[in-house]
């Protein structure tokens, strides 16, 4: 699997995700600077976390208009898989590749720590190594992760199985207690209609080594390798 990781001014998790990909593929992904409108064809494009363009105007708003994202939009339309993590999720929603948006956390705090997620489906490139209903533990680090979409959009997402992960308690209960940021219906990650684009606020790339508190994120990358190699 050949992967590309985008880099914007202010990105800060590009190295982490590149390392996670290298761990499962044995191959370092290409790092693509935001000003590059053209780059080598790859099997996967990753939009990493950070604070692109200092989160000016709205998180991800500036990055969504960068030359590299114009190219990503083109490739996503052709079916090239795109994974947006944290700020990357904000960027891909701002770019219109995923429905909804990420707002300021309900309690206004930057949250940093492990959360539990319920895997909603195993039927995707990104989640095929998980079981539907499985509970995984991965870290989050964000101030604007409060997912919002209007009722019509939510209904479509639910009906078409476009919800990838929901925040939950350790025992898998999806309720306010397990919701760290106020996301509507506890949504932590969503797919586009074809399930070739996925965005999520938590950081699976930071849960790939036992030394750092768990490996529950590794299966996401292993699943991608299996699906895309």
């Amino acid at each position: 699997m050949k992967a590309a990781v985008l880099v914007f001014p202010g990105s800060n998790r590009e190295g982490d995700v590149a390392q996670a990909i290298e761990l499962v593929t044995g191959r370092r992904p290409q790092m693509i600077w935001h000003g590059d409108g053209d780059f080598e064809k790859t099997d996967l494009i990753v939009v990493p976390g950070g604070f692109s363009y200092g989160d000016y105007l709205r998180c991800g708003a500036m990055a969504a208009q960068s030359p590299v994202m114009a190219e990503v939009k083109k490739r996503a339309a052709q079916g090239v898989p795109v994974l947006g993590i944290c700020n990357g999720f904000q960027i891909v929603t701002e770019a219109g590749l995923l429905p909804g948006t990420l707002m300021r956390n309900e309690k206004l705090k930057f949250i940093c720590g492990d959360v539990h997620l319920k895997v909603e489906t195993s039927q995707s490139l990104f989640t095929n190594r998980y079981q539907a209903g499985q509970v995984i533990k991965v870290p989050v680090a964000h101030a604007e992760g409060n997912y919002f979409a209007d009722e019509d959009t939510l209904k479509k997402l639910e009906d078409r199985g476009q919800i990838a992960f929901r925040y939950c308690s350790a025992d898998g209960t999806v309720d306010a207690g397990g919701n760290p940021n106020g996301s509507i219906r506890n949504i932590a990650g969503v797919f586009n209609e074809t399930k070739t684009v996925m965005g999520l606020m938590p950081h699976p790339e930071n849960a790939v080594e036992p030394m750092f508190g768990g490996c529950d994120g590794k299966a996401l990358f292993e699943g991608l390798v299996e699906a895309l190699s």
Partner: protein
Amino acid sequence: MKARVHVTLKNGVLDPQGKAIGHSLNRLGFAEVGDVRQGKFIELELAETDQAKAKARLEDMCRKLLANTVIENYSIELVG
């Protein structure tokens, strides 16, 4: 020509920052303050003299970048 753009959250969209501001004002003794909504104010200098053209361009700017129409409304004001 100068333009002013106001970006505000749509009705029904939770505004925790506005709420926090409201609470602080209440605590400071401004008991008359009820609901508070926080928005953005953007001032732009335009190299355009035709009002209609300027307005159309600003609409485009709002939709493409200045506002996120999933959660925000915008209003445009042309000044001089």
